[in-house]
């Protein structure tokens, strides 16, 4: 299977590539729209600042191809900032719209907890989840973020709690996203990626 990993210019791609390749996937760094539109599956990884991410997608004309991929049913997995970018807006970059696949605004984590939320945390399931198949309820995932998507939409498969409940795993039709880093979450994270690959129609 060939997976397009969206290269918007700032992400740490080798670890995501390595994790997918270990599972038998062929990976390609997508820097041109047609690479996304013709992919069997798309992974949208992201670290850093929301505005740099959105700008990086625009500069490479990748925003509309991600919308087309979404509309044509290509499975897309957003990781960390890649999940956040699937929402309409982020408090981190007011006035710079995200992809808008889901309604709502990404918000800064509250002041009464340590931020960034860094480390291994657990999640609480809200509906049956393809990405979490075979993973124990008390498993840990590695998080590293200061902003988070709301935990109350229909797309929520699991929430994490750090001051507030927030979107940890989202799934709706061909869209999926995880706020944690599966490529940094040991064997548990590898299982999440395997589950995503197994959801891709052959």
């Amino acid at each position, binding site marked *: 299977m060939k997976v397009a990993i969206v290269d918007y210019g700032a992400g*740490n791609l080798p670890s995501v590539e390595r994790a997918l390749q270990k599972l038998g996937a062929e990976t390609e760094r997508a820097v041109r729209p047609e690479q996304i539109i013709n992919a069997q599956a798309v992974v949208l990884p992201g670290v850093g600042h929301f505005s740099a991410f959105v700008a990086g997608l625009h500069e490479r004309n990748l925003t509309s191809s991600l919308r087309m991929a979404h509309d044509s049913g290509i499975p897309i997995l957003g990781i960390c900032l890649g999940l956040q970018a699937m929402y309409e807006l982020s408090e981190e970059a007011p006035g710079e719209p995200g992809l808008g696949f889901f309604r709502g605004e990404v918000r800064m984590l509250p002041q009464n907890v340590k931020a960034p939320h860094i480390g*291994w945390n657990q999640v609480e399931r809200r509906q049956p989840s393809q990405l979490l198949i075979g993973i124990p309820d008390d498993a840990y995932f590695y998080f590293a973020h*200061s902003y988070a998507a709301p935990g109350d939409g229909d797309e929520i498969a699991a929430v994490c709690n750090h001051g507030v409940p927030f979107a940890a795993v989202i799934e709706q039709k061909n869209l999926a996203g995880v706020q944690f880093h599966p490529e940094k979450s*040991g064997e548990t994270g590898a299982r999440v990626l395997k589950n995503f690959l197994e959801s891709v129609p052959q």
Partner: protein
Amino acid sequence: MTLARRIIPCLDVDAGRVVKGVEFEGLRDMGDPAELAARYNLEGADELVVLDISATNQGRGTFLDTIRRVAEQLNIPLTAGGGIRTLEDGRSVLRAGADKVTVNTAAVKRPELISELSQQFGAQAVVLSVDVKRTGPETWEAYTRGGRDATGLDAAKWAAEAVSRGAGEILLTSIDRDGTCSGFDCDLTARIAATVPVPVIASGGASDFDDFLDVFQKGAADAALAASVFHSATHSIAALKKYLVERGIPIRLSK
């Protein structure tokens, strides 16, 4: 749902080898960084830190190669640093496969380095390393250049400034305790953890399992880092984590 406390092995690297400073002897070879990284990844380490202790310009290429070799072995986060002076130094370390970069001496000289790194890569990728010596019952001073130079900076104030500039974690090393095997300085970590709104990684002095228990219970540390304790293989990370879980510390146990 509980955020787990982290156990972090540290590899001090010189010329591509893991080393340990030994009194009167200089450096002792402790093995290959990639081999040790693979072992710790398997044993259940929550993260790995790699520090270039030579930190010379000549050794920079070798260190980046070490980061690449180590990163290939891991499916956990990697922090790298030692001798990071510029935004470009930080970028090269992250490009080589590290998830976070740690800064110390250069950040004291030019605190803007923290802001630059944080704006470019995000606070979650910037770890301020603070090496301190105790100067009073409740006061500590920050040192640079591996503990050789006093800065005149109060450790708590410096940590708070670094966080306001965008540091996402504090790696706090007690020079007094480092290499003594007399336990972490729990007063120190408790003080800094109460001062800054970011995670604090305690370092320096770890010898046995009780030291780790203390630094989480009394020291309020979010993570504990150690080097030679783990290299010598007398204490496996898996056994340490089991010990801590049995005593009620939230810890991730891997299969």
